[in-house]
């Protein structure tokens, strides 16, 4: 029995691929230029970025993740992910297609794979997510002491909370109901009461930075390709 794949399944798989830095799906950012699947299971995805010089390591992660997400789908026999209009497109496209890893794709120009970079970005996502979850609580009157004592299970459900828990889990940090809401994204240790205000200030700043970067990237992409934002 064969399964037919349609474009919408591929697109929804791509919706799970994030810009590692901006922590947003590449579909929502407008980075997926096209996505086609033939009747015999050949998937071809074209990606585009806000500039010709976007950092090659971030670009590599997105192309590689897109490749993995699409090639995993039942019924996809062959996957091609092509990054368009980028100075390192050849090295990235060829490297991902050959499953070469980053170091071999950029022979002589890189000394390690990108796992550490990904972890750094996940930590930033946890900090930004902490602001998203805590700001409404603080606005509703929660004190630093309340927040320091709060567990994840005690926070009212929200998409922001789900996302924070997922990012913590991806980092290998505990994310169950009984775990503290505020933790150091590096060690996983709970934040002591005295350190709560500074932790929240840092969380807010990290979120501001992410949002500002996303804003600039979206604006540049719109200018480059004339696309409307989603």
């Amino acid at each position, binding site marked *: 029995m064969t399964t037919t794949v349609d474009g919408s399944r591929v697109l929804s798989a791509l919706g799970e691929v994030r810009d590692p830095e901006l922590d947003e799906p590449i579909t929502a950012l407008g980075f997926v230029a096209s996505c086609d699947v033939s009747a015999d299971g050949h998937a071809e995805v074209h990606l585009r970025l806000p500039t010709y010089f976007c950092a090659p*390591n971030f670009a590599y992660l997105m192309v590689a993740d897109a490749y993995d997400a699409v090639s995993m789908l039942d019924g996809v026999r062959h996957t091609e992910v092509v990054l368009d209009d980028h*100075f390192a497109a050849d090295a990235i496209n060829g490297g991902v297609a050959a499953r070469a890893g980053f170091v071999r794709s950029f022979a002589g120009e890189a000394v390690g794979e990108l796992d550490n970079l990904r972890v750094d970005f996940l930590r930033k996502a946890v900090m930004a997510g902490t602001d998203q979850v805590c700001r409404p609580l603080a606005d509703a009157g929660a004190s630093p002491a309340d927040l320091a004592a709060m567990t994840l299970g005690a926070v009212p459900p929200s998409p922001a909370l789900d996302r924070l828990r997922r990012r913590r889990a991806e980092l290998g940090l505990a994310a169950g109901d009984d775990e503290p809401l505020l933790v150091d994204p590096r060690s996983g240790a709970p934040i002591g009461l005295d350190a709560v205000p500074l932790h929240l200030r840092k969380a807010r700043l990290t979120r501001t930075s992410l949002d500002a970067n996303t804003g600039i990237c979206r604006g540049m992409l719109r*200018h480059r390709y004339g696309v409307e934002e989603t």
Partner: protein
Amino acid sequence: MYSKDGERYFVVDSHMHYWNAAPDNWVPGAEQYAKGWIECFHAYQGLAPAETHWPMEKFQKYSEDDLMKDVFTDGHVDVAIFQPTYLTEWYKEGFNTTERNAALGAKHPGKFITNTRWDPRDGEDGLKKLAENVERFGSKGVKLYTAEWREGSRGWTLKDPAAYKYLEACQELGIVNIHVHKGPTIWPLDKDAFDVSDIDHAATDFPELNFIVEHVGLPRIEDFCFMATQEPNVYAGLSVVIGGLMHARPKFFARVMGELLFWVGEDKMTFGSDYGIWEPKWQVEGFVDWDYPGDEFSDFPRVTTATKKKILGLNAAKLYGIEVPVEFQLDAGEGTPGARDDAVGVSSDSPAATLA
């Protein structure tokens, strides 16, 4: 000079360019990079008000008359600081060299300050060239671009021992202001090219120098702020922040400004238009009119007329020793432009440690 509502602002554009990115200046074989670079800059211009956008032809190579009109006649700028960007692997005569800038500056005495640059990969020859440029052009500042490509290398960091030699040379030569710009590629490529920790090291080891981090370390504003708050000699260059966010993303602009005012402080933030990416006119006028949009920003530092005067010109004037006519100076009690101790610090008794 800009006047509004009875207030007079002395404007120093501390980060601007005079480039030639037209096809006649592209290095054969590197055309795609030369073209990609200027197209990337042009996309940034798309974040400005539509009536200030330029066609690509003008954007690739604007004239002396364009610059003088846009920056001085219309743009309210009193003194403009040239920041060179070489990129000689892609542009035959360089994108925007010290020499090109200085030649224009020489025709308009008093209008420009000509910064130069260095690259630690240039070794002993580069040190000689640096001394020569300081002698010829009186440079008191340098612009460093750590992501510049050179003979297969895709960049460098301020932690390099070779870079320390140049920083020592800067101190000896009387250069006081180090403008640093991070770009998207640096060797090795797997590292975070935008990492600002090398500036932290250099700022600690060279306390006499001022480090002005252009576009506030974007996209690493948070890392920049955590550093700047602990290093008294680290300043926030607002190029790209005002140009790229104030019009296109006003709400994010307010949040970024609020964070910068909190972590870095109004004495350590400097306006730069990044001309020819963006014209200064709308930036200066818009910033003078600007305030936080709404109550949700109530826990950020307030923005006063004095704040704006410092950011638009008085801070940079202090860093460069530019004489400011008395009618533009602050009244007593309005603070000290360029003061190094404005950062909030992150100790437990600093304002950052309380939820105000």
